[in-house]
C-alpha cells in the first residue's frame, strides 16, 4: 500500500468519525430539544383549579349533606329553570323520571339514564346553577344533588352524601352503556 493511499484512508476515517460525532451530538441535541417552555407546577397548586370528579372517587371535596338540606337550595337556586319537582321547563332541563325499559320512547334523565352519580357531582359543581356556575360550596353541591337523587327515588331524604357515600350509589342504568371509544 502506498503512502498517499494510507493518508487518504486515514483522512477518510477522520472525516467519518467527525461525521459520526456530529451526528450523535446533533441527535442528542434534538432529544433535549423538546421546546421546554412549559413551567413546572405541582398537583397541590391545582387544587382550586381541577374540578374533575370521576367515578373512582379522586378529586372530591370535604363537606356533606342530605336531601332535606338540599331541597332548600334547590327551591331557591334551581327550581326557576328545572321546576319545583325537577320536571323541567324545557327539553334539556328535566331532572326526574323516565325508564329505559319503557315500551314507548324512553325519557332519559339523571334518574333513568345516567350511569354514575359522580357525573351529577362533577356537572353541578362545574356548570350549575346555569346563571351562576361554581357559586355553590362543596357541601351545597352534595346537598342539592342528594335532593335530585331523592326526587328520582335513588336515595332517601336522610342519607348523608359525602365523598365516600357518593361512591356507593348504584344508578339504575349503570350497566346501560357500551364503550365505543376504540371503534373505527
Amino acid at each position, binding site marked *: 500500500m502506498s503512502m498517499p493511499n494510507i493518508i487518504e484512508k486515514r483522512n477518510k476515517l477522520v472525516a467519518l468519525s467527525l461525521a459520526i460525532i456530529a451526528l450523535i451530538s446533533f441527535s442528542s441535541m434534538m432529544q433535549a430539544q*423538546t*421546546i*421546554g*417552555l*412549559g*413551567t*413546572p*407546577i*405541582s*398537583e397541590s397548586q*391545582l387544587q382550586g*383549579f*381541577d*374540578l*374533575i*370528579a*370521576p*367515578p*373512582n372517587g379522586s378529586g372530591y371535596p370535604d363537606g356533606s349533606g342530605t336531601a332535606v338540606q338540599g331541597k332548600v337550595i334547590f327551591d331557591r337556586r334551581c327550581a*326557576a*329553570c328545572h321546576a319545583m319537582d325537577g320536571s323541567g*321547563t*324545557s327539553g*334539556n*332541563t328535566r331532572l326526574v323520571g323516565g325508564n*329505559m*325499559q319503557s315500551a314507548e*320512547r*324512553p325519557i*332519559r334523565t*339523571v334518574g333513568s*339514564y*345516567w*350511569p*354514575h352519580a*359522580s*357525573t351529577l357531582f*362533577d*356537572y353541578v359543581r*362545574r*356548570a350549575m346553577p*346555569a*346563571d351562576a*356556575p*361554581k357559586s355553590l360550596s362543596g357541601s351545597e353541591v352534595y346537598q342539592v344533588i342528594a335532593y335530585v337523587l331523592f326526587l328520582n327515588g335513588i336515595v332517601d331524604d336522610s342519607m348523608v352524601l359525602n365523598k365516600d357515600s357518593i361512591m356507593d350509589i348504584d344508578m339504575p342504568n349503570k350497566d*346501560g*352503556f*357500551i*364503550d*365505543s*371509544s*376504540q*371503534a*373505527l
Partner: protein
Amino acid sequence: MSDKDLEKVAGNGLINRRSDIDLEKVAGNGLINRRHLLGLGLAGAGSLASSSLLAADAGLNLEIPGWSKQPGANANGYGTRSRFTENIQRMSGAPNPLYPGGGASRSPLHELQGSITPNSLHFERHHAGIPDIDPAQHKLVIHGLVRQPLVFSYEDLLRYPMVSKIYFLECSGNSGSLFGPNPADGTAQSLHGLVSGAEWTGIPLSTLLDEAGVEPEARWINAVGADAASMGRSIPLNRAMDDVMLALYQNGEPVRPAQGYPMRLFVPGCEGNISVKWLTQIKLSTEPTHFRDETSKYTDTRLDRKSLQFTFPMGTKSVITSPSGKMKLERQGVYQVTGIAWSGRGSIRRVEVSADGGRSWADAMIESHQSEKALARFRIPWQWNGGSAVLQSRATDSQGNVQPSRTSLVTEKGNISTYHYHGIQSWAVNTAGDVANVYA
C-alpha cells in the same frame, strides 16, 4: 376525464340535442355528464334567482356605471363584505334566559361555495356562552399521570412548531331532525348547517404531552374548557397522540372567541363537542371522567336500550346545497347541482347524484384537492324540464364507506338518540319549481 366516464356515457348512450349544445345524459331525469361543467355557457342555463331578462329583451343599452366614474373607498384596517351580501347570515335561535349563553348558530350552506367556511359564518355551539378571555391571563395545564405537570401561557405556545390542516367540523347533532317521523320544512342551513370547513393551525398535542412525559399507565386525556360550563370531554390517549392538535389559528387568523379563543382542542373527523373550546386543562388518567356531555348527552341509545358512549367519528355524508330546501327554480333549463361531502374516516372518493329519487345515479365532479376529513365540493349539471324530480347525493369515502339511505340509517339506529345522522338527503322539486325536504 377517465376512461370510466367515457364508458359510462357510451353505456347510457342517451344524447339529448338542445339548442346548440350536446348534453350527454348520464342518469335519469336530466343529469348531464359532469364533463360539461366547464363547457356549458349561459345559453340554456336556468336561474335560481328571480327571472332575469336578457339585456336585449329589456331594451337596455349598456353604459359606464357611476362607480366607474369616481374614486372608491380607501383601503382600511379590517375588511368588510359588500353591502349587497349582508343578507348572508348564520341562523340562530333567540336567547333563552333559562339557558344563558346556550345554543347554536348554523352556517348558510346554501349560499356558500367551495369547501372553506368564512370564520364569521362558521357554525357555533355553546353550552354557557362565549367567554371573553384575555390571552395574557389564560393558562393551559397538563397534569395527572405525567412525569412533570406543566402550565403553558399563550405566549409560550406561540413559539412551538405548528402544522396547518384543512378539516371539517360537524356537531354530533347536525341533521338530527331527520330522525323524526315527518320531514321538517327546512333549508340546507336549518337542517344541516352545523357543519363547516376551515384550515386549522396549531401544535400537535403529542408535542405537549411528550414534554410533560406521559406515564405508561395513562389511557385517557380529560379536556376541560374555560367557559362558564367548564365543558369537559374524555378522549382516549391513543387518539390524542395521533392527529389531535391544539388549534391557535383558523383560516389564518387567531381562533375567534366563538371558536375557542385563545385556543381549542381540534380532533379531526370527530363530533365537534370533543374539540373542546377555550381549552385550559388536560388531565391524564387511567379511566374517563364520564362528564355529563359524554353520558347524559352525546351518547347513542340503540333500539335494545343499550347506549353507545364515546362514538367519535362522524359518518360518511353529503348534502346538495343548491338546489336545496325552500329555493325556487324560476325557469326551465340547465342548473348546476352542487353540494358538500365529508367523512370522519378518510377523504371523499366519490359522490353520485340522482335526479329521480335514487333510481339512477351519475358521478359528480369532485374538486381535486381533497384531503382527509375535509369538506369536498361536488358539482354536476342537470337539466330541468319542468317536471317533478327528487335530487339526492350519495358519498363514498376512501375507506369504502357509503352514505346510507335515510330508511336504512333509521331502521338500524332507531330514533331514541338523534346524534350522528348521515343519511341521504332528498330534495323534491315540484312542477312549479319549489324545492322541499322530503323522505324518499
